């Protein structure tokens, strides 16, 4: 094709092509750097002898981590984060499975509209705007400072999207699988447990991990609903890392941030290996 260009016109095209390619690379480099720099900071600063806001490494040390483990709230907060994430995950996966199955199979007038409205409002439920009424509600229910309260509030926020994702997976399972089970006398719950759930396992894995990561990283909800530092999760405890001078304690923050991120990354790698991240249904036979 290129051979068809004649003389000067061909040369100019080549130069223009090179320039536009150069521009593209430059753009990609700038954008990547923009996202990579904070990552670099996260990887370097925990081991730095003089942590600062720049991604530099004047000297290597593990002292920052000692500081983290000497802080009385660090390990409990990580455990709290884990508990909160697991509770919410269990509740979200169980409820979303049942709800998505029902919504996928029952022909309900206005079903799709219902889902979209739920999805829309889910961001309101756990969003900033609803914080005051939510706190008042939890207060009335006597659920402030309990994991149940936080778990319920977080579940409410995550459930619509989880149902939405999972319903798509369930829509992809052939009706004949369930019908054959029904002809053999299986109840809807047996069908769900024996046939549908195993087939949508990748979908279950996606919403489970997605819930874990969401709860693990959620700050606002536990910050508002948990008043006691002993029950606060890592995201909230991190907020209290100040020096006596009122400055952000970068030593502590950097090392803790790394510890705090590692489980999420590991989880992502594991699930990606095992199932591959997909947000749509369909079965490999």
């Amino acid at each position, binding site marked *: 094709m290129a051979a068809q260009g004649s003389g000067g016109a061909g040369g100019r095209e080549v130069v223009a092509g090179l320039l536009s390619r150069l521009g593209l690379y430059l753009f990609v480099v700038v954008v990547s750097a923009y996202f990579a720099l904070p990552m670099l900071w996260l990887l370097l600063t925990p081991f730095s002898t003089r942590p600062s806001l720049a991604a530099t490494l004047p000297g290597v040390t593990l002292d920052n981590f000692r500081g983290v483990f000497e802080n009385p709230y660090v390990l409990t907060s990580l455990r709290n984060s884990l508990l909160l994430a697991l509770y919410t995950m269990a509740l979200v996966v169980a409820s979303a499975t049942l709800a998505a199955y029902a919504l996928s199979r029952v022909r309900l007038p206005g079903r799709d509209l219902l889902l979209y409205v739920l999805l829309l409002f889910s961001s309101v439920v756990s969003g900033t705007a609803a914080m005051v009424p939510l706190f008042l509600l939890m207060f009335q229910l006597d659920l402030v400072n309990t994991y149940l309260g936080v778990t319920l509030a977080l579940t409410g926020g995550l459930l619509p999207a989880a149902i939405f994702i999972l319903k798509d997976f369930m829509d992809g399972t052939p009706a*004949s699988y369930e*019908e054959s*089970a029904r*002809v053999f*006398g*299986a109840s809807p719950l*047996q069908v769900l447990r024996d046939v549908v759930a*195993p*087939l949508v396992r990748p979908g279950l894995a996606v919403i489970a991990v997605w819930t874990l990561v969401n709860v693990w990283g959620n700050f606002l909800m536990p910050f508002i609903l948990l008043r006691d530092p002993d029950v606060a999760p890592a995201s909230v405890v991190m907020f209290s890392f100040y020096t006596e001078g009122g400055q952000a304690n970068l030593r502590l923050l950097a090392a803790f941030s790394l510890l705090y991120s590692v489980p999420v990354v590991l989880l992502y790698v594991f699930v990606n290996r095992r199932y591959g991240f997909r947000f749509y249904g369909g079965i490999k036979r």
Partner: protein
Amino acid sequence: MAEVEVSSLTKEFPGGARALDGLDLRTVDGEFFALLGPSGCGKTTLLRTIAGLEAPTAGKVTIGGRDVTRLPPGDRDVAMVFQDYALYPHMTVTDNVAYPLKIKKVAKEARRGTAAEVASDLQLDTLLERRPGQLSGGQQQRVALARAIAVRPKVFLFDEPLSNLDARLRLEARTFLKRLQRELGVTTVYVTHDQSEALALADRMAVMEAGRIRQLGTPSEVFHRPANLFVAGFIGSTPMNLLPARVENGALRVAGGLLPLPAAAAGRVADGEEATLGARPEYVALGPPEDADGLSGTVALLENLGTGFLVSVECDGATVQAVVPEGGEPGVGDRVAVRVDRDRALVYRAGDGELVAAAPRAG
């Protein structure tokens, strides 16, 4: 021990589509009964209504004398084989076959034993630990059969179980299926859109169109004496010749020639009546052009059928097809005389398309 009976069965889907229209049907205990029809004729809906997967709008379903119209599928004592086999991809062959027994709360050892036994009857012994994805189409089909057999149902319901197999395997599976049904003696309702499959397998069959049964009978009855033009056009691997005709002096004016009135219609049609002559290409013979009686025409096309030829003859504007044995085929462009077997030709009324014949036998 179980015959299936449906009476005045009607099924309307939301939106008003009527899949079954006041349908009556009764199978004999232990018979292989085929439901045949083009897609959309309601045959699958009928099967699914018998299974309990669809609820009828009106009418009754009984199995072995028991009214099951309102019972859930699991309480009807039927087993169904689906077109896509519906094998569970996450279970091994053993688990697939044993799954119905698990639902019926049979102990694990017992159900694995039954599964292994049934599987070995169907030559699946070496595949017990495989998953459906690792099996060929024919093997999957046998696993689906094994799963249906393992529950020892009163009735088998088959929804086009052979249609996903390639042509050669389909013939083998067909023979296998018929032998299996003979051995088990379980009443079987079999849905298919393939007329040759229905003819080959069934003891009796129903040809359906638009939610109604157009003809009910043995394969031989349906093949030799289609009750109306719809069935006549649907049955037969080479389509039946259906030629517009008019009765003249006890004979038929067809395609520019005069043919003797077929035996079955003799004395039942009036002079001057419009009709349609039906003759299977297998019952049409070609002869040298000097044969005066019958039709004559020019050979337009030859299609090789392997053991013979399907010859299309242009007779005064109409096309008549004949099957001639190999070696006896004419050349394209030849003039030939066309003779129709008088004992096997049929006459259909022009108005309603019904067969002109002696009163149909009851049943």
